[in-house]
């Protein structure tokens, strides 16, 4: 036993899979200690890109520090007019026939560029003349945007904040060198994965969802393995009519697809009971068949072995023979089957949720539900909110991958083949 465990943990594939899986499990367990927010609370309206969001209202009410960043002025300029825009301006002026020899996209030449632009650009003119390379409406829209930006930018313009109203109003000047420390600001939030369509923090939701999916996988896997083991043992060892009946039932379960059963069960238990446990149980109850078949064939080959016959001749009871003479011999298969059942349980839940048959959406998120929401609310069609579906897919893939890797590693330990 000790030797087996040692071999298992020395197997590279098992180790890699195990590490990946453990990292996920630990993240699920430890993350909520750091981020105590309820994953289902809505933080905004619709998709928000990943980033840090700071409340301007609170920033203005926070004590300021004087910081002189060396490239502050350049950065402001850069923020207003990035290099691409400047290049577009130069190209347009060139197309107009203006001499652009002295202009480039550098910060030094910015003033000259702005001067040239303001002198030459006119919206109506652009529309009428349709200069080469800028004939389309889209191009002209781009030019208009640039022009608006320039008009709207107010670099080095004095800014002040007015608090209160009327006679009680106080005015504070905002200097370019006024900085606030982000964690002193009352309200700010870092959203590494932005928000989903409901405005929920995707990362927190993802961690919670992974945890729930893992639990579903575990419950479904356990149920499926135990059922499969029981059916396989009885059918394989007793044979005869017991075998025929059990295999008949197994065949029925193979033929009926899981989601039909799920629909029927959900319909009968009603809306309220559509929870995580129900989902897990149903997945478990519909996916035990291949474990049962695999166990059964193993048991059939074992029941005629000499040590089993010798046990019979020694007067051992059926229960004792099955548990001591048959079960340990198939233990390695059962462990591998369990891992695969967990993996397929997680995937099954994802599939079901994608079809809208998963657990209730208002209770907990699951990986499948997150994918479902992404699909329903157009994360990849209209909004290009990659953060709402891509990390989910990655997590599902990683889970499945790590479990299968562990399984392959175990297979190499339990069923070694001749190698160099």
């Amino acid at each position: 036993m000790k030797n087996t465990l040692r071999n298992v943990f020395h197997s590279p594939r098992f180790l890699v899979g195990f590490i990946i899986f453990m990292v996920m499990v630990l993240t699920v367990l430890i993350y909520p200690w750091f981020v105590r927010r309820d994953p289902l609370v809505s933080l905004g309206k619709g998709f928000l890109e990943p980033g840090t969001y700071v409340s301007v209202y609170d920033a203005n009410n926070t004590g300021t520090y004087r910081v002189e960043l060396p490239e502050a002025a350049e950065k402001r300029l850069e923020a207003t007019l990035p290099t691409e825009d400047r290049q577009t301006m130069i190209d347009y002026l060139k197309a107009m026939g203006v001499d652009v020899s002295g202009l480039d996209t550098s910060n030094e030449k910015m003033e000259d560029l702005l001067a040239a632009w303001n002198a030459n650009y006119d919206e109506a003119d652009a529309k009428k003349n349709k200069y080469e390379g800028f004939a389309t409406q889209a191009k002209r829209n781009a030019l208009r945007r640039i022009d608006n930006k320039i008009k709207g930018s107010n670099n080095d313009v004095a800014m002040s904040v007015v608090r209160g109203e009327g006679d009680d109003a106080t005015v504070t000047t905002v200097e370019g060198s006024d900085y606030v420390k982000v964690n002193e600001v009352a309200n700010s939030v870092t959203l590494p994965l932005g928000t989903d369509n409901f405005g929920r923090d995707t990362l927190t939701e993802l961690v919670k969802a992974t945890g729930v999916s893992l639990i579903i996988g575990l419950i479904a896997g356990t149920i499926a393995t135990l059922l499969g083991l029981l059916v396989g043992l009885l059918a394989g060892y007793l044979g005869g009519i017991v075998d025929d009946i059990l295999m008949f039932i197994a065949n029925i379960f193979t033929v009926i697809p899981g989601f039909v059963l799920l629909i029927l069960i959900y319909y009968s238990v009603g809306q309220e009971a559509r929870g995580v446990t129900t989902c897990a149980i149903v997945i478990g109850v519909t996916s035990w068949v291949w474990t049962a078949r695999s166990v059964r064939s193993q048991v059939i080959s074992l029941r005629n072995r000499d040590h089993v016959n010798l046990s019979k001749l020694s007067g051992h009871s059926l229960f004792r023979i099955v548990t001591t003479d048959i079960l340990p011999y198939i233990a390695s298969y059962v462990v591998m089957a369990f891992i695969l059942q967990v993996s397929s349980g997680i995937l099954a839940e994802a599939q079901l949720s994608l079809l809208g048959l998963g657990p209730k959406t208002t209770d907990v998120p699951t990986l499948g539900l997150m994918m479902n929401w992404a699909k329903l609310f157009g994360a990849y069609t209209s909004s290009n909110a990659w953060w709402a579906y891509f990390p989910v897919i990655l997590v599902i893939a990683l889970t499945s991958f790590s479990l299968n890797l562990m399984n392959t590693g175990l297979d190499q330990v339990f069923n070694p083949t001749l190698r160099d």
Partner: protein
Amino acid sequence: MKTDEIRTAEDTRESVSFGTRDKDFSKEPLCLSGRGVTRVFHTGKVTTVAVDHVDFDFHKGELISIVGESGSGKTTLSKMLLGLLDPTEGEIMFQGKPRDISTGAKKREYWKGIQAIFQDPFSSYNVFHKIDSVLLDCINMRGGKTLPKEKKIEMMTEACGFVNLKFAELTNKYPFELSGGQMQRLMIARIFLLKPNILLADEPTSMIDACSRATILDMLLKLRDETGMTVIFITHDIGLAYYISDSVYIMEHGRFVESGKPDKVMLEPEAPYTKRLISDVPKIHEPWDLSTVDLLQDAK
């Protein structure tokens, strides 16, 4: 590292005991007999008659060999004799009375009187249990479950000593730590503890090297001599059967084609199958005639 086989003075003894050579066993009481025993298997549409209406009489203390090639039905017959398989037709008598093993309890009672040794010593053991459990099971079967631990160890040591093994060196070991010969001898130690009326040995030496065969045979014969146990020896090795048996049954395609004392059956065979069998076995002093072989005959 396998435990080195322990060589004691007993081990270097060469002879196999001949205590009961040429004894007439037909005067002894009947131990196991059968009339018209048949076993048929149905797989789908195919019907196989593995054992075809065999009759036999085994006497107490006799060493009977059932000689047959693979496919002759001897394994099926042995399972029926052991009570692991039911005959589809025919009757088996145990100690003169019809055998009744219809319930689990009756089966367990029957197995106090008949035990087996199988061909492959490696697969006779549960690899997850220490070898002690095999011997302890035997003590329990004989009703010794409540005996004090020292007494049990004493019994196990005695049994191991009978087969030239030291229990103190084997205790707490797993089957894979023993050699094939040691495992098979431990199986005999098990029989020593159980002292059944009948022992069925299914090819017990076919997986043991020729050099170690004599040791196993020796022990079986000694056990028979000391306890009056009937031994049913199943083998395909005609030379071996000729050497050790008191009576021989030749089996072909589920039938007993000939039976009797070894000298008569092997040296003066009557049935054509037996004649062919004896002449086809390679011998040392008699020539092995290959000229009578018809190569174009496809014996299917």
